């Protein structure tokens, strides 16, 4: 990879995305072994700096690091000095002083990984910043689609739900369209970004019209707060118009895939039994997430010789 950090999908060239996805194949193979561990990053330390709780993403990165034999450190806000008023910069510099080789950052505010990348020497991996980006999620989603369909080129992908507040949607729009898919955003207008100038997407408010032509329907998590902010009258009304109910799932073509970044609200954006259909990729996404993150860590730390103090 050319850049030192992985902050945005936009930082990656098509050849780099391809390299990560090809390498992911070999780490999927490693993950399926009886002892799913390789010594590649022995002696390296990867720190998870999670200012916002996300057990799933943190565990996925830590599992990836451990399968590469790296040491892991975990800093999460609930146990940290941030609550005692320490500044972001002081926290980051303290962690770096302990000797680290990579920083995996999750923060509720957009842009924090960019700020941290200006302050530390170690490579920074964005594990989700506010509404902005979540590049490894997009990579694992691309990998999962390629696994089933061979390629994203020419596929029609519907991203459904709360695009406005979604880092997953922003990264996936860049990745899916970059790899040649046609993306349609399906959401009530209040849950779309207020300005879509420059977004290479179509927009629809009619899920029933979009589903029959979709190769992939990608559902976003709907958060309950959105009702309080008057972005929606009720979750019930959202589900009625934009939820992937059992009836709506019948509109899908036979080989269409259903995806979700998790955690799901069964019964809101996706009906419980739809999540468990064979076409649902949801658990496979989780499994692939570990392998994709192994590939990213390997490319950032293993093959370049970037080490502590470098």
């Amino acid at each position, binding site marked *: 990879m050319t850049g030192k950090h992985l902050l945005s999908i936009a930082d990656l060239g098509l050849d780099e995305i391809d390299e990560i996805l090809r390498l992911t194949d070999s780490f999927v193979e490693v993950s399926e072994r009886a002892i799913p561990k390789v010594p590649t990053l022995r002696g390296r330390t990867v720190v998870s700096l999670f200012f916002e709780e996300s057990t799933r993403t943190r565990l996925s990165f830590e599992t990836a690091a451990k399968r590469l034999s790296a040491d892991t450190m975990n800093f999460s806000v609930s146990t940290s000095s941030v609550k005692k008023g320490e500044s972001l910069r002081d926290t980051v510099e303290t962690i770096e002083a302990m000797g680290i080789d990579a920083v995996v950052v999750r923060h509720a505010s957009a*842009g924090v990984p960019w700020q941290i990348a200006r302050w530390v020497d170690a490579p920074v991996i964005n594990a989700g910043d506010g*509404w902005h980006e979540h590049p490894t999620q997009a990579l694992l989603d691309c990998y999962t689609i390629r696994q089933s369909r061979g390629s994203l080129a020419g596929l029609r992908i519907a991203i459904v739900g709360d695009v406005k507040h979604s880092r997953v949607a922003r990264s996936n729009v860049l990745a899916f369209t970059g790899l040649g898919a046609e993306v349609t955003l399906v959401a009530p207008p209040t849950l779309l970004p207020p*300005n879509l*100038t420059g977004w290479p997407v179509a927009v629809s408010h009619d899920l029933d019209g979009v589903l029959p032509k979709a190769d992939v329907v990608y559902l976003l998590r709907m958060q309950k707060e959105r009702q309080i902010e008057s972005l929606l009258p009720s979750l019930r009304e959202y589900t009625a118009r934009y939820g992937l109910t059992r009836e709506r799932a019948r509109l899908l073509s036979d080989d269409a895939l259903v995806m979700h970044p998790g955690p799901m609200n069964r019964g809101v954006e996706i009906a419980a039994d739809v999540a468990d259909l064979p076409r649902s990729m949801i658990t496979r996404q989780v499994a692939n997430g570990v392998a994709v993150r192994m590939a990213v860590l390997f490319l950032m730390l293993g093959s370049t010789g970037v080490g502590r103090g470098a």
Partner: protein
Amino acid sequence: MVRDLVVRGGTVVDATGTRRADVLVRAGHIVAVADDIDPPARAEVLDASGCTVAPGLVDLHAHLRQPGREEAETVDTGARAAALGGYTAVVAMPNTDPAIDCAAVVREVLDLGSTAACDVHVAGAITVGRAGQRLAPLAEMAALGVRLFTDDGAGVQDSRLMRRALEYASALDITLAQHCEDAALASGGHMHEGEWSSHLGIPGVPAEAEELMVLRDIALARLTGTRMHFLHLSVAAALDAVRAAKGAGLPVTAEAAPHHFTLDDSVVASYDPVFKVNPPLRPTADVEAVRVALGDGTLDAIATDHAPHTQEDKEAPFDEAPPGMLGLETALALALTELSLPLERVLALLSWQPARIAGLEAEHGGPVAEGRPAHLCVIDPATVWVVEPEKLASRSRNTPYGGRKLTGRVRHTVLGGEAVVIDGQAQR
């Protein structure tokens, strides 16, 4: 007793025009303006050859942070920054802690300013604690010389309360100034809402939040017949509204800040909170509209909105960092470098027009003429310099212009007949 002072070799520019003249100052006043003045014995001579000699600049909008946030700025450091920027008077905004909302705090700030490097005036709050609930004692503060009132940092949201404030003010010969932002519409936003905010995932503030309050206040100015000043306007639609109100003869004035005619919202892509400000940086079309409005008289003044913040505060995540940028030491040079306006027009926007809005025209911004108070700035319009944040006199470093090359710089500043800046060096 202060020595006589001669400003020698310059070109005088003021509201009456431009002419080559030396200026002799004695006991705080201008005593002669003539083609070639022989300096009296022991007089201090300030070389102004190749320079413009103008009335001192007047800033309608400076946050000096005292009392309450002395780690970011004090009246003393802010006034020194002002003097270095060519200002001889600044109006200190009332969003201090405690707010400048009563005679006691007015007196404290005026007292702190009495020995500063420029004249320090204050704006009083319109409402108690700037909370937007009930009127502050406007007459009590006006009796101490306060002429401008605002809740700056927030607009007065309650239309009925704003109407009452305007009616009450009409008896006091004061001006109410508004921070134009509909709080409900702007709520939760941290940058301009548009293409860049959507791309960056930062909650936005729509331009209409500013436009709506300008429209409301124009209606209230018409209803009450009371004059109003609009602070830091930044969007084309608000400027159009002011243009129309002036055309209809309503008593409104307006200012814009240098960052709104020099920076657009694309710079936020760095996620550096040094670019966070309120009102936020806008798209290029609005930046262009501000430039046009400065040229066509819709805007009466360039005001800095100088807003110091500590390094720690500005290293927070973008959506947690406080809004604001330094401005006093760069405003004149930005206007000279970036606006294609004649020098006389730039000085009108920075000196005599804001002096009138602030009610300071008897002291500041007047013609460089015999008998006038000697508040002057001497500008070298050809000096090219690079903004170095660590060399600024402000206690804070949050300028968005670090590394930017500017043309035109203040060489000397004279306050009440005393040279407070000589060759770019502060003397107080």
